[in-house]
């Protein structure tokens, strides 16, 4: 089976000379739930952002079903992006807008631009947005202002917005790093369940080892802009993690998230 997402020798050098990725090659098959682990600055966020071209590789190429997203521009790029949902560490909701309007924003890639600008979404899209809120368990929050919600609820709105895109790929950049441990697990369980139901190919950046082991089909370890581990959750032993983090794992320290 050919890969859904492929990274071909991807390098990213930021203005100022920082090399965030130093040649990453990776294939992700359709429907796989991949967790990327590594220290801050290892290149996890950069890697995930090359998939929807929010970060443009300075060398190499990222392809989705064989089509290059790196070389796509204008309308073609926006179409590819509308097929890729993304959720963020800080949720990135428009705080002063209603929850429903935030979720409807996920439909913007598909509805006619003028309809989108005027906020005249087709009735089916509005219904679908409500549906997405039900899927993440907060249908009653549709008309609340986004900043009136708790952190866990805000991230669920983030998931609903991504889901509203009807994507085939889901990207999650540290989705639970701003949440407390019990909420983190609840949000990750929802994310896993939904991406499974929709058969989405999913890339998640995570800090916590136990969460990575618990939810991942496959774990990618990154260090210093390179992939240093690639295996199943079972293969990701404490020894493997020590190699990824480049230091011994202390049970009491912050690499684990308590449940």
């Amino acid at each position: 089976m050919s890969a859904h997402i492929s990274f071909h020798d991807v390098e990213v050098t930021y203005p100022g000379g920082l090399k965030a990725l130093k040649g990453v090659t990776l294939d992700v098959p359709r429907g796989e739930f991949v967790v990327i682990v590594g220290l801050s600055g290892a290149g996890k966020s950069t890697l995930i952002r090359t998939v929807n071209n929010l970060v443009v590789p300075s060398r190499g190429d990222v392809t989705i079903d064989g089509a290059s997203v790196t070389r796509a521009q204008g309308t073609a790029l926006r179409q590819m992006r509308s097929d890729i949902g993304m959720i963020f560490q800080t949720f990135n909701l428009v705080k002063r807008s209603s929850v429903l309007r935030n979720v409807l924003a996920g439909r913007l890639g598909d509805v006619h631009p003028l309809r989108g600008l005027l906020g005249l979404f087709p009735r089916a899209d509005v219904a679908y947005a409500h549906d997405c809120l039900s899927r993440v368990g907060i249908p009653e929050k549709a008309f609340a202002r986004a900043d009136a919600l708790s952190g866990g609820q805000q991230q669920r709105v983030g998931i609903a917005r991504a889901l509203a895109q009807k994507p085939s790929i889901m990207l999650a950049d540290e989705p639970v790093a701003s949440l407390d441990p019990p909420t983190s697990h609840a949000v990750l369980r929802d994310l896993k369940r939904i991406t499974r139901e929709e058969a989405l190919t999913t890339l998640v950046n995570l800090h916590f080892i136990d969460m990575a082991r618990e939810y991942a089909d496959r774990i990618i370890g990154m260090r210093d802009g390179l992939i240093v581990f690639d295996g199943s959750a079972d293969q990701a032993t404490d020894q493997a993690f020590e190699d990824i983090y480049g230091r011994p794992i202390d049970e009491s320290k912050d690499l684990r998230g308590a449940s």
Partner: protein
Amino acid sequence: MALPDPNTVPLRPGFASRLLNWSTWVVLVGLFVVSLQQTGFDVEALTSGSQDFVRFFRRLVPDWTALPQIWRPLLETLQIAYLATLLGTLLGLPLIFLASYNTTVNGPVMWVARSVLTVLRSIPDLLYAAILAPILAPGPLPGVVALTIFTMAVLAKLASETVESIDPGPLEALRAVGAGRNRVIVYAVLPQIAATMTSFVLYIFEINVRASVVIGYVGAGGVGFLLLRYLNFFDWGGVAALIVVIFAVVLLIDLLSVWARSRLI
């Protein structure tokens, strides 16, 4: 941590920075003296004129029979300010986003937009009105055009600084969704700047009301026009009535605007 030894004398700042300090003061005082001399600023003339001053104010008794003449130009002044604020806001809106680094199309476009704004802003509104009045025929139209340009330039400058300081997260999220530039602006930027923008617009309306009084003086319509006529005909009663009315209206609008803005943020 050890306490600093009280006997050690703090280091004096370096010679260069002391020189800079001194030369700053020398330049400031020098400019003050030169300006005093060349403008002929004279305290004696100020005090000797005090009797004329008193005589002038004695004559400034409001002649309320002028009121019926005042209403129409006063309304015109407010209409000029209102129209200019509205038109300037609409015309300035695209410029705001072209001039902000996080919403512009590309570098050259941003540079052009910023340059246009700088040039427009560097010309005082009174000068616009003075130039436009003979071209467009004296009346409210040159006033509206002059203040529209002013509104556009000032609003775009203020608001683009606001746009550049917004939370970039929602912008990134909307780009990731596959939305184009305009939709990103409508969904991610406008909600974040709406309250501040409204406050700016109200503030500029305040300024425009005051400015539209003044620009009438150079032939741009409104109540300034009337003031000029009263002054030319030495109609001190009319001048006094007009000043009182303008004062009351401007104060009222300022208070309303301050109240409205305080409720926004």
